[in-house]
């Protein structure tokens, strides 16, 4: 569904992504794992249109979407849940959801209900300013907000970052549920254990290059991966 060909991205004067090629098949959960600074975030940011790739192509189905502006990417059906959640703290929970649907002009009611069904906690706090939510609730809101654009592919940058283990478990349950409902997921994580348990397909990224790929299970049982990422 999403195909990345020989993607190279410069970030802060260095080549952060050095020719990465991979595919995200429709309906799957795909994960990129790797250490801090391996180029995971930069890859997602390039797909989302926040940074322009130096070279390489990004295709969504048959369409070349390389270098499109972020709003065009969103309108094509790709959304990114940013690292650190970045909900809008002064906007209410409901406003945060509405702004996730910024480009839509149709009725939002059904989707707001959908998100509230996925995250009943958000419904309770609908009128609260998002800044008053706990970390886990903010992560739920960031995911809910991304879903409001009705994405084909939802990319997630470190959804487990800074959250308690139990909360992380809950978030990954929801990711699987969202995937079951038809949204393709591209996930990057430092929490490799959790990510590999969840993913259908997994890639390992090391200093800007892909070094390994396989199903989540295969990589979980791989000695090198165990040693480097599963401690």
């Amino acid at each position, binding site marked *: 569904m999403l195909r990345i060909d020989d993607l190279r991205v410069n970030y802060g004067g260095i080549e952060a992504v050095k020719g990465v090629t991979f595919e995200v098949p429709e309906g799957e959960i795909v994960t990129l794992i790797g250490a801090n600074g391996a180029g995971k975030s930069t890859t997602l940011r390039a797909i989302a249109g926040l940074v322009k790739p130096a070279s390489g192509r990004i295709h969504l189905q048959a369409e070349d979407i390389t270098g499109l502006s*972020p709003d065009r990417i969103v309108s094509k059906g790709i959304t990114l849940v940013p690292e650190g959640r970045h909900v*809008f703290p002064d*906007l209410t929970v409901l406003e945060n959801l509405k*702004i996730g649907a910024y480009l839509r002009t149709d009725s939002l009611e059904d989707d707001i209900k959908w998100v509230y069904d996925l995250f009943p906690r958000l419904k309770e706090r609908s009128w609260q300013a998002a800044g008053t939510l706990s970390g886990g609730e903010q992560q739920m809101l960031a995911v809910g907000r991304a879903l409001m654009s009705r994405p084909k592919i939802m990319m997630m940058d470190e959804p487990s970052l800074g959250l308690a283990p139990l909360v992380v478990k809950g978030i990954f349950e929801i990711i699987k549920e969202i995937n079951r409902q038809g949204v393709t997921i591209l996930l990057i994580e430092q929490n490799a254990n959790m990510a590999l348990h969840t993913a259908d397909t997994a890639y390992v990224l090391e200093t800007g290059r892909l070094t390994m790929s396989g199903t989540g299970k295969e990589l979980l049982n791989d000695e090198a991966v165990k040693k480097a990422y599963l401690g």
Partner: protein
Amino acid sequence: MEFFISTLLFGISVGGQYALIAIGYTMVYGILRLINFAHGDVFMVAGLMGIYLTSSLGAYLSPTTILVSLILVLVLTVLLGFLIERVAYKPLRTAPRMSVMISAIGVSYLLQNTATYVTGGQPMTYPAIPFLSDTITVAGTPIKWVVILTPFLVVILVVALTQLINHTKVGMAMRAVAKDFETSQLMGIKINSVISTTFVIGSALAALGSMLYFTTYQAVTPTAGAMPGLKAFVAAVFGGIGSIPGAVIGAFLIGICENFVKVLPFEGATTFVDAFTFALLIIVLVFKPTGLFGEKATDKV
């Protein structure tokens, strides 16, 4: 007593005019963290356009031509504000903030110098606007209608603007962009068009402010925007820069204080009135560094 009432009326009126300019400063700061030094000069250019358009359209006294020219002033000022942003600020979006500020100072001088070139540096007289320039007698003092009407108009505009920001989609986008450029982009918001909208609103209010201000004080010189612009900027800082209600309340307070200082019974009160305004700002900032309604000083990440 009569003296008190007329001083208060003048204070409220000029305060309202400062408020219309101050909103432009505070909104642009809220979104770009930029002090748009050219804003006061946009206000001055709007004044000059008022003069040239009414005279080129002919009859000074026909209400229709005046109305048409005022609408043109509004449209052209908005266009000017939009172009300034696109030409002088947008290319510097990722540059350090100081560079954008220098660009703003450059635009300010460009507008002032152009005005000097066009007018020859002579003060020009703003046309009398029917009704607004007519006088009535309040508490024994003849006062122009504009003085009475300004505060009402300002309150209506501010309420409308607050509704726009708090209850419309574009307002929501403005609040989002003010907080976080990148995440706003991820929502599909085109930040450049939101920024342009901010400049359009600010310039439109400056144009309206110029009509009210120059109807009261009729001389328009190339530097006529500098002092009201500076006072409006002070009002915005005073109220807490980034906050619209803060800017409006700050502007009214400054307008009122200024007019009362002018009539204090000691020699030189009129001369020192501007120094007083800035002293007031310093005192407020000593006790409340973020201004009356300012958000806590958090750096944009």
